[in-house]
């Protein structure tokens, strides 16, 4: 028995090990591109020199065949350079500029980046892998039977009318036959029943549209204005997998998520000055967008001279059109939802990674907010702040409660959002 147990244990351990390796590997492969985009792409391109040298074939140059040296260099360029003539010459070539240190990158991560560089380089400049297949949320077209019902109703109504008409004609005929003097027929437009019915129907239909219109005032779901620059979230957040918070960093600290200032765009676009590899992008009207031209627009706003690689000092801020508008009497705080509530941006903003131009996904009305507050569970046991809710903790312990929703800690009260 004991032997068996040991064997089973070994097998399980082995399986777990293999599994974990597999997971690590998977994560590495996914990370390489993202890590490159996050850390390196500002200064390096795979195929050409930008601020730093091109990275394609890096392992064939200088001392970089030795990974250990590469790690040392990336972790501490200044320290490495002291004893290395190759990097010293690189520094003098690039006008005394030196690489930023990345002590936070682990060796595994650096390996992942180099892997990514090598695969991209091998594929060649034209055949860049389109990146991860974008997970498209399956949104089956809602089976909308309204039209069918409408047509059916109409047909039935006509049939009913004809039958009524036939009925009255037959009655008249039979009356004639039996010699009952027929009453002068009242035309339908003077028939009080018809008039009353019409009024009621008009009132209901009119009322419905008036109320719907009134409720919809100021609501702008699916609002998708034309922006001064055709900025594709699909390309940036989807294909390039740039973290939302890289640009909208204020969302972690502030009530506003913050539209990135032009200097944030230029962090990357100083190096990325053309749009060639990505999929074709289209405007809402179907016309194709020239990505490179849009980048040029950015340079104009930033006051950047791409030929001389320097700022002209004549920039101006970009006047984006605001899409998500809340009324003035609503207080909404991004950091509350993202940092404390640990919500994904997509919960409210929808599949931004698939939107070229962003549109308003959520309803942004009060019912929409409240519903979420009713259903969403608070990080109740993880966050020590909630330790003051002693009664709820007690109830959880006694299995009276299994979780605490936002509503239970007062998340649907007026002055949580209106003050």
């Amino acid at each position: 028995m004991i032997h068996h147990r040991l064997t089973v244990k070994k097998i399980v351990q082995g399986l777990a090990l293999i599994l974990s390796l597999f997971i690590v590997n998977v994560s590495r492969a996914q990370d390489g591109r993202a890590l490159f985009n996050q850390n390196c792409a500002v200064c390096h391109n795979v195929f050409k020199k930008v601020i730093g040298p091109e990275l394609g074939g890096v392992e064939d140059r200088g001392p970089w065949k030795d990974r250990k040296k590469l790690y040392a260099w990336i972790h501490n360029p200044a320290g490495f350079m002291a004893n290395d003539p190759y990097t010293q010459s690189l520094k003098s070539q690039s006008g005394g500029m030196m690489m930023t240190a990345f002590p936070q990158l682990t060796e595994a991560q650096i390996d992942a980046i180099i892997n990514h560089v090598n695969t991209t380089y091998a594929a060649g400049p034209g055949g860049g892998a389109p990146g991860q297949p974008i997970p498209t949320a399956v949104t089956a077209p809602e089976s909308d039977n309204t039209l069918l019902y409408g047509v059916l109703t109409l047909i039935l109504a006509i049939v009913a009318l004809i039958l009524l008409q036939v009925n009255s004609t037959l009655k008249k005929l039979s009356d004639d036959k039996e010699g009952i003097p027929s009453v002068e027929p009242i035309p339908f437009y003077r028939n009080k029943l018809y008039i009353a019915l019409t009024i009621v129907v008009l009132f209901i239909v009119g009322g419905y549209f008036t109320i719907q219109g009134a409720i919809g005032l100021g609501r702008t779901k699916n609002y998708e204005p034309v922006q001064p620059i055709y900025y594709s979230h699909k390309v940036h957040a989807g294909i390039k997998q740039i973290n939302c918070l890289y640009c909208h960093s204020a969302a972690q600290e502030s009530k506003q998520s913050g539209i990135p200032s032009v200097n944030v765009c230029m962090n990357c676009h100083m190096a990325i000055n053309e749009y060639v590899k990505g999929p074709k992008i289209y405007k809402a009207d179907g016309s194709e967008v020239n990505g490179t031209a849009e980048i040029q627009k950015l340079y104009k706003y930033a006051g950047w001279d791409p030929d001389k690689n320097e700022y002209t000092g004549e920039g101006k801020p970009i006047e984006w059109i605001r899409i998500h508008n809340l009324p003035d009497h609503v207080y909404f705080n991004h950091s509350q939802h993202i940092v404390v509530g640990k919500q994904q941006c997509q919960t409210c903003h929808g599949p931004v990674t698939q939107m070229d131009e962003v549109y308003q996904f959520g309803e942004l009305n009060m019912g929409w907010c409240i519903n979420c507050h009713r259903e969403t569970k608070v990080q109740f046991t993880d966050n020590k702040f909630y330790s003051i809710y002693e009664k709820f903790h007690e109830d959880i312990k006694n299995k009276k409660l299994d979780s605490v929703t936002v509503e239970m800690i007062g998340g649907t009260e007026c002055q949580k959002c209106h003050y």
Partner: protein
Amino acid sequence: MEQKKYWQNLGELNDTEGHQKLVKDEFQEDLPFSDDGKGLLDAKAPRRDFLKYLGFSTAAAALAASCETPVRKSIPYLNKPENLTPGVAEYFATTYVREGDSLPVLAKVRDGRPIKIEGNELSALTGRKGGTSAQAQASVLGIYDVARLRYPAEIVNGELKEFPGSGFEGVDRKIPGELNGPATVLLTSSIHSPTTRQVISEFLAKNPGSRHVQYDAISYSAMLQANEACYGKRAIPSYHFEKAKTIVSIEADFLGTWLNFVEYAGQYAQGRKLNMKSPEMSKHIHFEGSLSLTGANADDRFLHRPSETGAVVLNLLAKLGGNVSAPAIGDEKLRKGIDMAVAALGANKGAALVVCGSNDINIQIVVNAINEAIGANGTTIDWSAPLQIRQGTDEEMAQLVRDMNDGKVDGLLIYEANPAYNYHNAEGFKSGLKKVKVSVSFNDKLDETTALCKYVIPHHHYLESWGDAEPKTGYISMLQPTIAPLFRTRYFQTSLLKWTGNNSDYETYFKNYWLTKLGSQEAFDKTLQDGVIEPAAETISATAFNGASLTDAAAKVIAMKPGSKTELVLYQKVSIGSGADSNNPWLQEMPDPITKATWDNYVMIPYTLADELGIKLDDVYEMNPPKPVIILTINGKELKLPILAIPGMHPNVVAVALGYGRTDKLGVAAGGVGQNVYPFVNGAGGTREYYVSSVEYKKTDTTYPIAYTQTHNQYEGRVEAVREFSLNDFKKDPEVIPQYREELAEEFAKETGEYRTESTLYPNYESPGAHWGMSIDLNSCIGCGACTIACTAENNVPVVGKYEVARNHEMHWLRIDRYFAVYRGKSDGDDLNVIFMPMLCQHCDNAPCENVCPVAATNHSSEGLNQMAYNRCIGTRYCANNCPFKVRRFNWADYTGADSFPDNQKPLVGDGQMEPVVLMMNDDLSRMVLNPDVTVRSRGVMEKCSFCVQRLQDAKLHAKKAQDPTLIRDVKTACMQACPTQAIVFGNVNDKQSMVYKIRHEEQVERTFYALEQLHVLPNINYLAKVRNTERPVGVKDKFHKEPAAEAKPRAHS
């Protein structure tokens, strides 16, 4: 006759018909249709009209609704400054400076705009608790004052002629050339900035024959000169009220307007906080003629004529063993008062302090001798850190005016001084100014003096400036800009530097000065971050007293003959002060702590004088804004002002506030408000004295409306809202309040004894997480009003203007109820008790307002807040009607421009248009002060104190991010943070470590009471009963408050 109750106005005192009508109706205005009994069709707005209006408004709404949704833009920075996150407020340490006054503060900057001022907690001058004054709180509005001068200009006939271009090249080219005469005088308010002093001395050195004259709007010349005579220093020492067990003040309003009053208020309150284990407190005896804020806080108060001040101080000195003879005092009560003061001072030698507000050198010498006799020098008076906020002597200024008139002054540079308005001999100054060849003003507005100058180069607002201040020697506070200058203004110091031939600007000069002094950039940065450099430990030291001048001074004081007629006191209001910030609508609309009047100055007269003048203090007087106007004849000049009869005045004293009657050019808030009484200041004796010893008066048949709030927001005679004990009574029987609570439980909760749960039909609200509560100590509250203004700034409380205040439409969320209690028949008013009680929404757990709202716009939160959802409110006003505390405010018009319909700025009821000052507050510039986290309310909705819910939410967010519930333990509301005496404490009552819990349940159990506790509204604000250190009868006997000795019930469980 013994007074039976606390009262706020005469109607309440005498329960008149007008008062009864007042308490019956929450809203005083008539309904917009007449109730003439003629039936609906004949009424002014019959049914058909109603239908017409209904149809029209539906159509209008439909039309408005069909407008397109506006396109809004989001414009990020081009290059975002590091450390700046849009939507997150930052605090910068700087210093409030204004005409010599100064206070270390933090400026809250939100998205690039300073929007709120808080005291700097690192400074001893704010009591290390961040105490502020109403003026400092209101100063943030000053930067957005539309009347600020916007460019350097030449002034031709009072009109500005702009210099071309930036203006400064022209200024620097033109003025130095014209200033080449040797006799240039620099006329400023007291300068206590080390760098500015150095700039000035360099300027003077470069221009031989020039001199610097310091001139203060309110003169402290006598103290400076008396101290020079007694201590060899022309300076004013630091005072330590917290170290004094006995405080005697003769006419010094040290809690409201006198010298460094914010610091004093904090110190004073320390001596007034009661420890329940051994209840002891300082004793404060006050002598004055009029009723001041400080007098109102005194334990015992005695009345004298201002011309008797000398006699009072001499008597004090003589009885304390000073070798002087003193004139006899006729008034028996005053004699007793002096004896009481002498006894109290004598018993606490070394822990006693006497201060005097007189500006007579000899009197101040006698006061110095008194302080010497009671051992104050070196114990409560500190010579190691003299005050620098007042340095001007009257002789210097008089000499300057003489020189100007003699043509001996070629150039006059004026900075933060306005003698054409606030000098007693303004005419002399003006005629002299005409003879000055070049006059340049650096003032920020086209004030009375600037309008007469040749050039004006406006200086920056303090929130736009670099700089430093040294209000007390060794206590340095830095200024740093919180916003780029809004207008083309320039440091006055830069002008001096340029004209000295030094080409650096003041900013560079300032940085170099401090870099050298502090040694490194790091030290400089640290200092800027802290805002202050102060000595680590306070050392109190004495200076040798030289009594040589005393004999002569005493002889001169004896020679002063007390007047026999009615005398006039010229005082400063707590809100307006000397008048430097007259154009601040927040300060103008702040009710005066004593009279509760806004927007005007007036003659405060004693009741006896009203009788004599035949003014009936009846309903007509009390309930209606128009007040009888009298004519005061002062030295042959006439002054026509309305009266307000005030208890607690000396029968032969009337008082008028300084700081009013400004030119229209100063702005719409200041212009045309009240009368200027600076010309009546008595300068005959060499120093400016703020009283006139003989005035004639006569009544006129005219009236003038005064907007005062003392008849607004009345409880229906429920005066037990406030509780007061004398220290002795309290020591004898500290259980009065707990006993009362038990009686309530006995009466209303017969089964369980739980007053809270049993005595009501309504459910008991539970707070599973936080539960907010506030405690207000009536012993510490001095009624200064800093909280009112802080609340106004924090919560976008609108300014409504005088007309609206007069008809009960004031909007303050936090008012300070002032109660009088006099034990007298026709008393002279010296046994008056005054209590200040900050009254704001009590956030009742069983709130009467919530039950009557038809749309549930006001309801209860699980954290104990009485919530107000503006967008849900339809304006029935039932809630206000049902509020026992009268703390709800209705937006009768669109005061803050929240609506998109301009017509809404017309009031709903009545014929008046919105006042110009309200429109000024709606200017795009003024609106920059609005707090973006608080909704601007539109017309037709109710509003009230929210317990600063935006701060609570913010604190909770921080606590959640940091995963630390202790961060919400002691959250600060705006009123709490601003309070100079820490009377207000706020926090999470569910947390047993919170200050407010400890006060209620551990430290101050015996003094904890709730306003109108018997109504079972279960307020979330508790008060701590006022305790007065006096032998006089104190407190009110009502049906709940049983005579403690005679019929004290045995306690239920004892």
